[in-house]
C-alpha cells in the first residue's frame, strides 16, 4: 500500500503522465548544473560529463542540444584551457546560428586576452 502511494506521489511530482518525449538528448545537463551549483567542486565533474556526452553524440552523429557546447567552452575557459574553449564556442556557433553574436564575441575576447598576454611576455 505504501509503495503504491509512493509511486503515485512520484508520478505526480514527475510532472504527470503526459510527459512528452524529448527532442534533444540532455544526458542529465540539469542535474549536472544543480550539483555544480550546490557544490562548486562538482563543476569539474560537469566538464568531464559534458566531454563524454559530446564525444558520444559525435560518434553517433547526433545534433547536440542547444547550449551544451558553449557550457563546456566556458568550463574550459574557467580552467584556463582557452584553445579548447574557442573550439567549443566555434562549434556552438556552427550548430546554433542564434548563438553567433555571443560566440563570436567570446572567441574574440579570448583571442584579445591571449594576444595581450603574448605582448607582455615578449616585451
Amino acid at each position: 500500500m505504501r509503495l503504491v502511494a509512493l509511486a503515485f506521489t512520484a508520478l505526480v511530482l514527475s510532472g504527470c503522465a503526459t510527459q512528452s518525449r524529448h527532442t534533444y538528448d540532455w544526458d542529465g545537463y540539469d542535474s549536472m548544473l544543480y550539483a555544480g551549483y550546490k557544490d562548486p567542486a562538482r563543476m569539474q565533474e560537469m566538464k568531464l560529463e559534458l566531454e563524454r556526452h559530446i564525444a558520444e553524440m559525435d560518434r553517433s552523429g547526433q545534433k547536440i542540444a542547444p547550449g551544451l557546447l558553449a557550457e563546456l567552452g566556458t568550463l574550459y575557459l574557467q580552467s584556463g584551457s582557452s584553445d579548447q574553449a574557442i573550439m567549443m564556442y566555434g562549434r556552438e556557433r556552427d550548430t546554433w546560428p542564434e548563438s553567433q553574436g555571443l560566440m563570436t564575441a567570446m572567441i574574440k575576447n579570448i583571442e584579445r586576452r591571449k594576444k595581450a598576454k603574448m605582448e607582455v611576455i615578449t616585451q
Partner: protein
Amino acid sequence: MKILIIGLTLMLAGCVTPPAKYDMSAFQAAAPRSILVVPMVNRSLDLDAPNYVLSTLPIPLAEKGYYVFPVNTTKYVLEQEGMYEADRIHAQPTESLAKLFGADAVLYITINRWDAQYAFITTTVTVDFDYRIVSKDGTEIWKAHKTMQYTPQNSNTGLLGAIISAALARATPNYMPLAQQANRQVFVLGENALPDGPYLTNKAP
C-alpha cells in the same frame, strides 16, 4: 485507499489543460527564436534558490523549440561585466541586455517563495514564481505566475511515522520537482503556454 484517491485527484488536477485562450499577439508579432535566461531575483530566504531554479529552465524552453542561451555561460558573462546582482540585471534596459547577447527575448523570473512551512505533524513545501518575457525592443510579450505546493503524505505509519516524515521533509525539502512542475505548467500546459518555437514548428511537415 484514501491516499490513492488523493494521489489520483492530485494527478488529474495537475494534468488537465484548461482551454487555451490568451492574447498571444504580442508574442507572435515578436516571434523570438532565442531566449536569454538571466539570473532570478530572489525574494525567498534561501540564497541558493536562484541557481537551483536556473538549472531547471533550459530544458523545458529548448524542448518548446527555442534556442536557449547557455545559462551558466550567461551567468559567467554577466559576472565578467560586473553584474552579479539579479536586481541590478533586471533593472537594466532589456534592449541593452538583448544586444549584449544577441538575444531575441529575455526571460525574467522572480522567486517569491521557496520554503518549507512546518505545522505540528506536517510540512508543506512551496515554490512561487513570477515569469516575464520581454522582447529585444523592450516590449513585454508574455507573463505568468505559478505557485506549487506539496505536503508529504503519510499512509499507515501512524503519528510517529508522520512526525518522522515531516521532520525529514523539513530537513531536506525537495524543491526541484516543484520548480520543474511549475515551469512545465506555465511553459507547456497552462492556459497561456508558450507558442511552439522555431525548432518545433519548422519540424512540422
